């Protein structure tokens, strides 16, 4: 058990990186989907635009997944050569996952709200849809930065 604790912590890092941004993205995508369905009942031709808006808060989930995958690769969880980590290494992986785990989670929800509000733009002024996308994308900056920080940290852990 003791010798295994580091690896367990490493797994916890993977789980954190994937779970919370996943939750955030589900909430965000769900928000946009709900308000988008209303517009589609009125005008099914707007499906394409709505789908694009709905996809925007989904990226955090991908970022989290990506961070999780990178940790898996680093600890050898992919391919069957699982390494034994020290407790210190395990904690480092958890800390490395924290930026995307927290910022990915929160920013996906806020981005979902902005994109859901953007659905109104698509409904009333479809030609201005690009602006709705850009507004939502402003929120994404912080998810990208935290992904960056997480990835750099994951690479920096010596295993």
């Amino acid at each position: 058990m003791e010798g295994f604790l580091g690896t367990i912590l490493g797994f916890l890092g993977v789980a954190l990186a994937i779970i919370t941004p996943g939750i955030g993205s589900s909430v965000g995508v769900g928000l946009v989907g709900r308000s988008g369905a209303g517009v589609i009942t009125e005008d099914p031709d707007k499906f394409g635009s709505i789908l694009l808006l709905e996809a925007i808060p989904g990226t955090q989930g991908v970022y989290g997944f990506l961070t999780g995958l990178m940790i898996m690769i680093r600890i050898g969880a992919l391919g069957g050569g699982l390494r034994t980590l020290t407790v210190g290494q395990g904690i480092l992986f958890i800390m490395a996952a924290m930026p995307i785990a927290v910022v990915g989670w929160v920013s996906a929800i806020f981005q979902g709200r902005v994109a859901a509000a953007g659905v109104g733009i698509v409904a009333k002024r479809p030609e201005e849809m690009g602006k709705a996308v850009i507004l939502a994308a402003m929120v994404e900056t912080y998810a990208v930065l935290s992904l960056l920080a997480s990835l750099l940290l994951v690479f920096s852990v010596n295993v």
Partner: protein
Amino acid sequence: MGHESRIGDVVTTLQRLGTVEVSADTADLSCPFNPAAGLAHVDSVMSELKYSIDIMGRHRRISKTAIESFTGYRLRLTDDEWTTYVEDGAENAHRIYAMARAVEQSLADLAAAETRILTSCEQLEPWKELRVPVEQVTAGRYVGLALGTAEPRSYEAALGDAAAAVDGLSWEVVAAEKDKVRLMVAYPMSAADDAIRALAQAGFAKVSFEQYSGIPSDIIAQLEDDLRSIEAQRAQIGRDIDALVEERPRAFALYDFFALERARLDVTHKFGGTERTFVVEGWVQLANLQEFRTAIEQIADDIVVLDRPPGEDEEPPVELENNRFASAFEPVTKMMGYPKQGSLDPSPFLGPFFLVFFGLCMTDAAYGIVIAALAYWLIGQTRARGMGRQFLNLLIMSGLATVFVGAMLGGWAGDLLQRLFGWRTAILFDPMEEPTKFLILSFALGVIQIYTGIILKAYDNIRRGDWLSAIFDQVFWLVFLTSIGLALGGGYLGPSGPAIASAGQKLLLASAIGLVLTQGRHHKNPLMRIGSGLLSLYNTTGYMSDIVSYARLFGLGFTSTVLASVMNDLMLRPAGIPVIGPIIALIGLVFGHLFNILINIIGAYVHSSRLQYVEFFGKFFEAGGRRFMPFGMSTKYVDVENAKGA
């Protein structure tokens, strides 16, 4: 201006040319032409057509291609088809409307009839066993008959009591159900009132079938026949709908035809004039002026076209003009908004940056080929014009830029080639192995773009003759920012590094003093000047955060690279299985990489745009231009080939 009788021709010509934006405030002459009557007529025809089109859409969906379900459906007509379709416009519109109304009416009638029959069947079904025609169940001369229901547990006792009270009352069970028994009762008419009272007391609830005749099972059989005939009628109506839907192209064409007429009537609101003459003002691009003048003066001798440059106090609308290459970037600018009249159009300047950024975000040559090919194919498929065409051109160029960047960084469907053949494809460096180089590259591009933005602002200032602003606001900042870089990083530049660093420090001091002295120059109070100058140094943080923002290029590009590599890793695993292994791997790879393209292309486009809007435009762009919106042929459903000749 011209004679009032020419208005119709002039408006038609204006619409056909599509090069003039008609201004609302024509002189101070009130408009003597009242298009209200015409408008009302056109509106009523349009609403009829809209109704018909909606009916058609409800019963027979337009079969759209996958692309059209995203871009919206447009009907393509040739000139000749258009002319045929819009002949006898109002009559045809009425005819189509009548067809649609008839279809709706008969469908509604059928639905009502069907409900009626189904309700009747439901009512009669439990009485199927009754062998007496229902019209005979009534009060006769000697014997009264009635149908009704009663409580299954207590009815025998209760009716026994009733029979005891009224001599000759008898009953027969037609059907017994769990919660109800259905009875037919008979009683002598001599004691009818007593019998009815006694029956009511016994819990007998009368049911009447006055609207029917015959025995219930026959009636039901009849009703079922009716139901079948309704189905047959429905098939007939189906054919009517088909006939109606065949008119759909005509309905689309007519709708647009009347929409154009409506626009023509609407625009005459903006005309001014006297009793016998009209005058209309509008903006036209210089390049189109001659064509416009010729076309208008051709109509009649008594029409005059006068032109003048925009006045001092006037704000002309803005149109972007670029060569074919740079015009592809106009959609990016237009999404932000039109630049102010007379200011710089950023489209050609943002172009190279946009392409490189897009390429870095995708970071894969194979993806670039897919994107460019897809955009090229879409141009052929949608025959998009205007903005849509520019956008697709932009996608093609972005795809090609992605091929270039991908080749530099060695991304060919991720690291597929390395995995399969052990080829090391990176020309510049491999982002998977040297991610920090990628990050530095992103920052470097950021610095270049921000410098470009500042230089553009300087150019703009010089263009307007404002040399002082160019030197104080832009050159000083450029020197200042550069010297920060030299002072901090100069030490690492080889043997002469320390010398560079110290030169940088001196330069930094000098430019900082310059900024402090000049940035507050709009204040009169010297103390305020210095204070505001000092405060301006704080803007450095703004430039720093701008540069950090370019880290997103690394974030997105790296995501796409890593995801591609993960796809390869996962999908190549089953390749070892004999025979079907390679097939599974191939399908998996195709889908995996398409998925990766899909989730990355949105981010690549959006973030490449954002870097232009926030970081680049912020340095020089002057927003607030009003879009040039010429009065022209804008249609909802139909594209007429060679629309200008229609």
